[in-house]
């Protein structure tokens, strides 16, 4: 799909924003400020930005564990600093610090959050898609998965049910080549994982996940199909994670030179080339975007660092909707 110049400039800014977001998270994870595991999506920006770009605020989104980028872009601009604060485990975090990197949710934009267990949201997402049909609305559901997710049995149950009932559900499989250290080619028999959808009569396609225009085009056609009541689509987006599985994983399992090869196909670099060469955008406009992003990201960071920790006593809230559990006396 050929994007307009403005659209391309916007999506370029989106991708730079989530790249810088992740770089900041990486820095503060490695220096010990951010607790816990962090799964970075550097290198996968087009796969996240392109899909979110097509969706409306009322469409249901289930990000995956490597989903900071999709989560940031799905949120309202004023809430983005709250997302960073959540990753820092702060009281001001969008979920009060109780979830952290892996469970960021924001119901007002229908970011339903990730469940830390692979394959879990693949069946939960059946329910929001089902509710759209039950309530006769045209909101679609997108569930992000990785190549590793496909090994879970829930993927079979979900796709079988979604296809049988023609649910408005889009499976976005971000194939970044590795489930932690295991290449997908060593754990699945298919050459392309999208082949897996064929057994369920689900239209399935593989596209270059670093080509922002291709991602937008394939997502749009899946959304259109879902809205026509024709059922689910499986989209496999081929990409690569530049970091290890978690921040700090040296990724020694990757062959030498592989990362460098993929860096040449950096989605941001490709989009920039398109802007400069195809749309005749001036280098100064690109610099302006980067300057804007720096200012923006720094404001999220300052907010996150300055925010207080949550009250430990809040740990006992919301276990049940109607009864309180015992705290410490």
């Amino acid at each position, binding site marked *: 799909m050929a994007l307009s110049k403005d659209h391309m400039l916007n999506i370029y800014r989106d991708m730079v924003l989530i790249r810088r977001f992740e770089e900041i998270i990486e820095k503060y994870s490695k220096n010990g400020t951010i607790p816990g595991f962090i799964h970075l999506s550097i290198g996968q920006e087009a796969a996240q930005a392109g899909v979110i770009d097509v969706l409306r605020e009322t469409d249901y989104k289930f990000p995956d564990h490597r989903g900071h980028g999709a989560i940031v872009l799905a949120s309202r601009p004023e809430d983005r600093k709250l997302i960073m604060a959540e990753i820092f485990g702060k009281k001001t975090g969008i*979920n*009060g610090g*109780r*979830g952290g990197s892996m*469970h960021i*949710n924001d*119901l007002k934009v229908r970011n*339903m*959050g990730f*469940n*830390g*267990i692979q394959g*879990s949201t*693949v*069946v*939960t*997402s*059946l*329910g*929001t*898609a*089902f*509710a*759209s049909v*039950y*309530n006769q609305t045209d909101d679609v*559901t997108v569930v992000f998965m990785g190549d590793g997710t496909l090994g879970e*049995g*829930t993927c079979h*149950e*979900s796709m*079988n*049910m979604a296809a*049988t009932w023609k649910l408005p559900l889009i499976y976005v499989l971000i194939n970044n080549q590795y489930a932690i250290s295991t290449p997908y080619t060593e754990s699945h028999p298919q050459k392309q994982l999208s082949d897996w959808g064929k057994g369920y009569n689900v239209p399935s396609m593989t596209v270059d996940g670093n080509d922002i225009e291709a991602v937008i085009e394939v997502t749009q056609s899946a959304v259109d199909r879902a809205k026509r009541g024709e059922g689910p689509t499986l989209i496999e987006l081929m990409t690569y994670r530049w970091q290890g599985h978690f921040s700090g994983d040296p990724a020694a399992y990757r062959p030498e030179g592989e990362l460098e090869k993929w860096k040449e196909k950096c989605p941001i670099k490709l989009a920039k080339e398109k802007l400069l060469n195809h749309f005749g955008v001036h280098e100064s406009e690109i610099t302006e975007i980067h300057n804007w992003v720096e200012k923006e990201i720094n404001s999220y960071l300052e907010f996150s660092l300055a925010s207080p920790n949550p009250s430990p006593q809040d740990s006992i*809230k*919301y*276990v*049940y*909707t*109607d*009864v309180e*559990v015992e705290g410490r006396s």
Partner: protein
Amino acid sequence: MTRKISFSKAINEALHQEMERDEKVFIIGEDVAKMGGDFGITAGIWSKWPKRAFDTALSESAIIGLSCGAALCGLRPVAELMFADFIAVCYDQIVNNAAKLSYMYEGKASAQIVVRAVTGGGIRCAYHHSQCIEPWLMNIPGLVVLAPSTPYEAKGLLISAIRNNNPVIFLEHKGLYNKKGEVPEDLYELPLYKANIVREGSDITIVAAMSMVDFAQKAAEELSGQGIQCEIINPLTLFPLDKETIINSVAKTGRLVIIQEGPKFMGYAAEIGSMVYEEIFEYLKAPMKRITSLDTPVPFAPVMEDYVMPQYEDVLKACNQLMSF
């Protein structure tokens, strides 16, 4: 107006009346729609509401996952697990999804689902269709586990469960399905998190749930003839437990017997006993006793199954021992 109906009819009636009352309620599961359920519990719903009753593939994870997602959109799914044993194949959805959603969304949304699960032994179906799985669920903050013992309790608790915003596992002991009792025709709710004092007595507190309540009543009757007065507490909500009612009762009687179907080790009888020791040790006149199944899978042959199930004579023996301590 009340009349006598069976435990299974009481559940069926609750479902019909809640479907009628609230169009956000729907049923989903294996053979629950056209067939009306393997045990006939959902009979008649599909013919009245064909767009609100869903037969699924044999996909328990998808059934529970879909229910959770639909609940987040404001619907009120009632899912059936044909046998509670099947919780093992959708345990992740119950434990890691349903039970965590209120916490994850800070109470802004929750898994307002009911999972009806057919539990317990006694119908000669061996180890994959006879287990008492309550303890699998009672270490999971966020879940509500209900265990009715009469048709009246079944109807009122199921109605409360459907209207409640927490994920509720509603245990239906298959040995109780044909049990009859007085049930009001109208809709009524029974409180969650509240135990029922089935019988008052001054000498021994017996805690029992589901089909074990009948066991306890029979024993209490027999012991009464010997001058031993038993107080029977039926928790109704196994988790989160109404500790207060049990503790108040044991503080009065000073003696505690717990009858629990299912293996002894780490069963809820252990938790109730620990709770009493921790809270009111000084009130106890004798050590507590647990009457449970043996720590085995449930075997098939009737003489074998009967052997591993809780023994009535052991209840009498335990009560007599406590009185002579």
